[in-house]
């Protein structure tokens, strides 16, 4: 028989359901705030220390597994090589994402205008969505004027679909009564789209943006692996392969870290944009303490 154990102080603050205005002041204590940052950072530091000790204690050679310090060194020394590569990858990722946003949203708006348009375009949407985009990379490399364009198209196609399908779902998920209300007041199609459907679809759009942002980077890297391009305009993926061939493992790790950093930055940026546009009204962006 286990006994009931009371854990922690009970929160007796009863925010009644009828209270006029739910007061949403975060009640997190200072200690918890500090711990919220300290715990993940601590775990990260612990991981790096463990990595370092593993290499040093086992005497693992640099060309198999470098120490964190080696990687940091390489990051500094190879900066002139890595920076242009990072720039190339960033440019492809963000151009692809921007195109996917514009294209996905425009396409979604077009699709929800009429069920005939949707039906007509449905097979293409399915075909493009189920085909692993990377499998058409070789074709794109033949047809596109240059490798950069091929990478861009790949990355675009991958980021495009989550944005499109989220946006379509969002535009269709408008409260039926609100649509009736717009109808009642004789709203035009355009007014309904701008004032009602697009704002209602924002949470879905933001979900699409976050997924699409991450996928654009992944696709940009994977497509470059497939392209195996070299020379001036090569991105981080090429530097990864090159480092591997040359057994320059510290640089490989450095390139990897840059990619991870880019991924985190994209995630942070898209999450921030989502928070900025939704935090005042949408559940997904509101802090709840229950």
């Amino acid at each position, binding site marked *: 028989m286990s006994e009931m154990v009371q854990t922690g102080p009970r929160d007796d603050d009863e925010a009644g359901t009828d209270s006029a205005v739910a007061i949403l002041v975060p009640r997190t204590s200072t200690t918890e705030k500090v711990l919220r940052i300290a715990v993940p950072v601590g775990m990260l530091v612990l991981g790096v220390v463990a990595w370092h000790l593993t290499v040093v204690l086992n005497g693992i050679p640099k060309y198999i597994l470098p120490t964190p310090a080696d990687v940091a060194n390489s990051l500094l020394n190879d900066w002139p090589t890595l920076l242009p590569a990072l720039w190339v990858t960033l440019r492809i990722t963000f151009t692809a994402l921007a195109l996917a946003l514009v294209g996905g949203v425009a396409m979604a708006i077009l699709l929800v205008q009429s069920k005939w348009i949707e039906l007509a375009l449905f097979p293409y949407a399915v075909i493009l969505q189920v085909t692993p985009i990377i499998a058409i990379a070789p074709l794109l490399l033949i047809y596109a004027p240059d490798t950069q364009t091929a990478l861009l198209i790949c990355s675009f196609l991958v980021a495009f679909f989550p944005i499109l399908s989220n946006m379509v779902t969002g535009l269709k998920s408008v409260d039926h009564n609100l649509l009736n209300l717009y109808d009642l007041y004789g709203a035009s199609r355009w007014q309904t789209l701008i004032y009602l459907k697009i*704002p209602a679809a924002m949470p879905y759009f933001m979900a699409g943006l976050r997924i699409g942002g991450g996928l654009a980077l992944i696709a940009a890297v994977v497509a470059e692996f497939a392209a195996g391009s070299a020379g001036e305009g090569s991105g981080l993926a090429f530097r990864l392969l090159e480092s591997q061939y040359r057994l320059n493992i510290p640089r490989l790790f450095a390139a990897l870290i840059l990619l991870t950093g880019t991924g985190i930055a994209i995630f942070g940026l898209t999450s921030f944009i989502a928070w900025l546009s939704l935090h*005042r009204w949408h559940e997904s962006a509101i802090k709840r303490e229950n």
Partner: protein
Amino acid sequence: MRGVSKVFSNGTLALKDMSLDVERGEFLSLLGPSGCGKSTALRIVAGLGAASSGKIDWPSSRINARGLPEGDVGFVFQEPTLMPWKTVFGNVYLPLRLTGVSKSAARERIMETLASVGLADFSEAYPRELSGGMKMRVSIARALVTRPKLLLMDEPFAALDEFTRQKLNDDVLRLWRQSGVTVIFVTHSVFESAYLSNRIVVMKARPGQVFADLPLANDGERTADYRTSEAYRVATHEVSRSLHDAIHAGGGH
């Protein structure tokens, strides 16, 4: 308003030859068991779904492309049906915005309407910050902001607790008395209809038809002790019996 016969069918016959004349300034309740087509009738009046036959006649008024008198109809849904990304002000502004009134031109009227439902201090709040009753008030303010001649309410307080509901009933009565608007109020509550209306139309189901048409004395000046008065008891008794008869007459299977 001269409401004429309307037959509605979508496979099932929701309303059969329903005819109703609504007098100007009336507070009319449509009362009936679920499935009697009272909401359907209301939606047809609002132009939200066409009647399969029959039509609605409006008194001389500018009729828009959808057969509705322009800006003369307000609708309150069962749920508050607010746009969560808009403030209270933005939500109430909507009907005016759709007809091209600028925000500054609308401001005074919006604030006035909000004050009339007791929400003057909440114009910048978002719907999620409000209680259920307050959201409903916003919804009522939005319906009233165009100064409609006809206010349609579709079981607006069904989801609210008894206290909030009674409070809102009094508010609706006050607004009706002050504005002289014609109200068609759909409800399944005998007490609510007897308290609010000066005419109750009892409907029966399968197919939806008018069963009884009961006039009620109501000058809109209900006082707090009306709920316990003899007149109220008699009225609810009469309405209850009529509803009971309607339920047993209706369907027959």
